[in-house]
């Protein structure tokens, strides 16, 4: 039957119904197809009996029963579907069934390659315990190319983009190894800490696979990073339990596994797990609820409460911020945590929904973090000339400024959004546009600081 004038066609109606059904977790796409076949047959029988197409559709949908009740029945029969499974079933049944398996194989091979790679220097006499500095500087150079490789393969990255990524990785590898670092010096530590941050951008570009230019692509990368962190921590916990048992049972027969653990299990497991965790995040992104936003929601109010109390106490008691060596780093970390809380609540928020109580808490958190940081910065700035400009201090101040700028403007954008004078997407755009800034600063620390400060 053709469409009724002004109304939507039967196909569109069925399309809507199908999409509505697909949102039900307990009803898989293959069941939707089965139900759709039923619906279509019912409609055609009714149409043959003389009903108009849209009437037939309404009757057929009604006969199908309430979708809530239906999805409850499906959930009861397929309770396992509510418990997400490790082995990911492709959403559209049929030919792409082999994809996840190939994915898993590739990821596994890359993880093994990373584990092998970390042991290669040992062949040339560079031992983990004697040359800790070498391993610390190069850790990201061992792992991240393979991780990027996984995404290059998965996203079929263009050769032109690939060239840039390879160039960045080579530059990183070269700079980490040709600089004559003083062993255990400041600049070596700074390189070890900042190289992963700089190279994480390379992973991001590979991950986004041509969508790096879009807010959505970068936002996905933020989500990926958060989930990866959580998966990695979980895998590390599992590894710790495994190791504890291994040590225990081998000790009972008088064998000390510590040398094996230190030189094989820990390094190989740690680098391999990065690739495995990334694959898991990729494979399960649509299957499992994202954890980072859940944790964010849980902890944002607590952090906000702690910071507000801190500021209150500061004002009430009139104490000054103690200037110790690590106070700047502590406040850097505070800003990182607050930024993380902000980022992951942004990443999970529906930009179309209107401001709520949680957004207010978020603004309170950001504003109080800014205030606390300003107090600390003020205290430090007053005496920075006394301390002198060591590379550590300059790097820490630089990071503090970068984070401060980000959070200050975020607070402004957030306040505008709460006041109804701006869109939430402005905040998203600001955060995703800011990502390269971290990488660029990290790259400056890695490339320029060692020569500037004489490799101390």
């Amino acid at each position, binding site marked *: 039957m053709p469409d009724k004038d002004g109304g939507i066609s039967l196909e569109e109606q069925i399309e809507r119904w199908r999409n509505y059904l697909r949102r039900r977790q307990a009803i898989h796409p293959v*069941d939707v*197809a*089965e*139900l759709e*076949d*039923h619906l*279509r*047959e*019912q409609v*055609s029988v009714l149409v043959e009996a003389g009903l108009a197409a849209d009437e037939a559709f309404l009757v057929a949908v009604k*006969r*199908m*029963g309430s*979708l809530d*009740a*239906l999805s409850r*029945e*499906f959930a*009861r*029969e*397929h309770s396992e579907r509510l418990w997400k499974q490790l082995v990911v079933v492709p959403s559209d049944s049929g030919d792409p069934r082999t994809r996840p398996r190939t994915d898993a194989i590739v990821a596994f091979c890359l993880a093994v390659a990373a584990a092998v790679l970390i042991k290669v220097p040992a062949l040339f006499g560079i031992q983990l315990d004697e040359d800790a500095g070498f391993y610390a500087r190069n850790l990201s150079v061992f792992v991240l190319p393979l991780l990027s490789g996984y995404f290059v393969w998965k996203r079929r990255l263009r050769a032109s983009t690939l060239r840039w990524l390879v160039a960045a990785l080579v530059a990183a590898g070269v700079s980490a190894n040709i600089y004559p670092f003083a062993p255990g010096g400041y600049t070596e530590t700074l390189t070890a800490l900042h190289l992963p941050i700089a190279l994480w951008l390379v992973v991001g570009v590979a991950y986004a696979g041509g969508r790096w230019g879009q807010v959505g692509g970068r936002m996905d990368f933020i989500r990926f990073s958060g989930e990866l962190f959580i998966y990695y921590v979980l895998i590390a916990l599992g590894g710790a339990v495994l190791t504890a048992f291994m040590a225990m049972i081998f000790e009972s027969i008088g064998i000390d596994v510590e040398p094996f653990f230190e030189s094989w299990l820990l390094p190989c497991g740690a680098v391999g797990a990065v690739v495995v965790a990334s694959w898991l995040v990729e494979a399960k992104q649509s299957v499992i609820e994202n954890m980072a936003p859940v944790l964010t929601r849980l902890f944002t109010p607590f952090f906000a409460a702690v910071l507000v109390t801190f500021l209150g106490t500061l004002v009430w008691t009139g104490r000054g911020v103690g200037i110790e060596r690590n106070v700047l780093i502590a406040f850097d970390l505070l800003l990182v945590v607050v930024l993380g809380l902000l980022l992951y609540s942004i990443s999970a928020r529906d930009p179309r929904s209107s401001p709520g109580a949680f957004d207010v808490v978020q603004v309170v958190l950001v504003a109080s973090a800014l205030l606390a940081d300003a107090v600390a910065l003020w205290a430090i700035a007053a005496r920075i000339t006394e301390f002198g400009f060591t590379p550590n201090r300059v790097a820490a101040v630089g990071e503090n400024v970068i984070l401060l700028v980000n959070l200050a403007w975020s607070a402004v954008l957030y306040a505008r959004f709460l006041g109804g004078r701006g869109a939430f997407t402005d905040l998203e755009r600001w955060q995703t546009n800011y990502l390269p800034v971290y990488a660029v600063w990290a790259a400056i620390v890695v490339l320029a600081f060692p020569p500037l400060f004489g490799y101390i």
Partner: protein
Amino acid sequence: MEINKDLIAASSTPIVLAILAEGDSYGYAIIRRVRELSGGRMEWTDGMLYPVLHRLERLGYVEARWEVAKSGRRRKYYRITSRGRAQLAEERRQWQAVDATLRGLWQALSFSVPATRRQPRHFHWEPGHAG
């Protein structure tokens, strides 16, 4: 007359298995057959058939396969397995036992307590089960 939900649920397994024992079928056709056989008295909510079919499939009583129907659409057909036939026989024995028990009771009631004629609902049941 509306048959209550518990009865519908309890009878769904033997009914579906028996219909599939007549020949392979698919969801819509099974519903139509039920409607036909019960003279419209067994009204199943269409969607609810599918969880039942999936349960029978999980238990190994039926097998499913996708085929392209004459309409050109992909359609999921169900076939009863040998385990399903065994289960059907078992269900049949159980239902016959229930039926025989009730039949005995209805008869006893109709002879000894004619007053229950005031409640014709019980008698409505009889032809359905006798048939």
